[in-house]
Structure formats: structure tokens, C-alpha cells
């Protein structure tokens, strides 16, 4: 039977997306503040 571990996979995709978006936003904010 296939293991039911989808929660970990959803969490990984959400975390990765949040990290990339937050970093892109941080560059934008830093350029704006200069």
C-alpha cells in the first residue's frame, strides 16, 4: 500500500515557494530603499 505522506510534500513545495518569493521581494525592497 502506498504511504500517505502528502502533507510533507505539500509543506516542502509551500516552503520553497515562500523562500524564493520572500527573497525576490527582499531584493526589490532593498533597491527601493537605496
Amino acid at each position: 500500500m502506498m504511504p500517505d505522506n502528502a502533507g510533507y510534500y505539500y509543506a516542502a513545495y509551500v516552503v520553497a515557494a515562500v523562500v524564493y518569493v520572500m527573497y525576490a521581494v527582499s531584493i526589490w525592497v532593498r533597491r527601493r530603499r537605496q
Partner: protein
Amino acid sequence: MALRWSGAHLPPDQAHIAIDPLSIAAFIAVAATFVRAIWFTPLERIQGPAQKIFYIHAPAAWVAFLAFGLVAIASGIYLWLRDERLDRFAESSAEVGVVFTTVVLVTGPLWGRPVWGTWWTWDARLTLTLFLWFIYVGYLVMRGAVDDRAVRARYSAVLGILGALLIPFIHLSVYMFRTLHPLPIVMKASRPSLPGEMLLTLLLAFASFTLLYVALLRARYLLAEERDRLQDSVA
């Protein structure tokens, strides 16, 4: 205020509002990779849905190695030519590399918990990857602590080169040491050991994450260039 397609040639006070086509392309490519991985790639029977973490974990690791490898190359050439553009490139690549390594270090345990039964183990590959992250976080902290630009660039170049020496050890650690971490599936001498649909998703992820790296690197480089220009105008 008019929106323009590239921030590179706008005055510094308007550069942040520019729409960069490279960033848009990278965003679309990564979004397409997520959609394909989540909805159009079959589940692996033994590991279950958690196996899909692999499509964001392995490409993030590849980009981290690429980013830090380029830090070392740019730093080496900087020590030879003393061109500030190389220092800015190394600084930018190191910061983007830390972001991708962070994703590697977060997604790895999220796969390890359901598949290995533990969030973390101090095996060679995991431990060396954590050390790599610490070295480049230290690199960025050190850059923030040194005011003199030439001194900062020289110290950073040496640390940037030394840190990248870990990369081959991390890649080969699964062969050199007894480790829980799986062996390479694509980056190996023989053919990739993955069914066609999964391999296509993985290759798309490698391409889109590399494009994302280039877009973030370019944006971060422009930030560093504007900062240096402002410092020069104040001095």
C-alpha cells in the same frame, strides 16, 4: 511613473519599479515546474507522495553548487584582475546560493521524516551541506562587517574560494562514506535511473531553477551596483 522592461538603464530612483522579462520568464518556468510536478507526474509507489519533494530538492542543490562554484571562479579572477564587477558578481551569487541551500536544508528533512523516519541525521552529505551553508552565511556576515571595499573584496574572495572546495566532497560523499542519502540519479557516469515522465519533470526543474538563479543573480547584482554607485557619489 512609467514601467519599463528592464531596470538596468533606469535612474537608481526608478530602477526598482522596472518589469524584468527575465524574472517573469523565471517565475513562469518555476510555476510550470510546480504544476507539472504536482499534477502531471506519477506518484512513486514505495515512497508515496513525499518522493515528489525530490523535484525541488535536487535542482535546488544543483543551483547551490553552481552558485558557489561561480563565486569561487569569480573570486579567483578578482584576485588576479581586481575588477570590482567580479566582486559584486561573487557577492550576488553567494547570497542567491545561500537561498537555494536553505531550500535544500528545509526540503531534505521534510523528505527524510516520512522516508527515513527521522528529520535529520549527521551523515556526511547532510553535515557537509550544513557546513557549506554556514560558510557562505559567514561570508555574507563578514562582507557586512568590513567597510573598506578593497579589503572586503580580498577577504571575501579567499573565503569564497575556500568554501567552494567543499562542493566536490559533498557530491562524492555518498560514494566515500557510509551514508543514508540516496546515490545520484542524474549526475552520474551511467544513464539516469528514472522513468521517462519523472525524468522529464526533473530536467524541467533543473532548467527552471537555473533560470531562476540567473534572474535572482541579475537582480541582486543590479542592487550591488546601485549601492556602490551611491557610495561613490557620496564619497
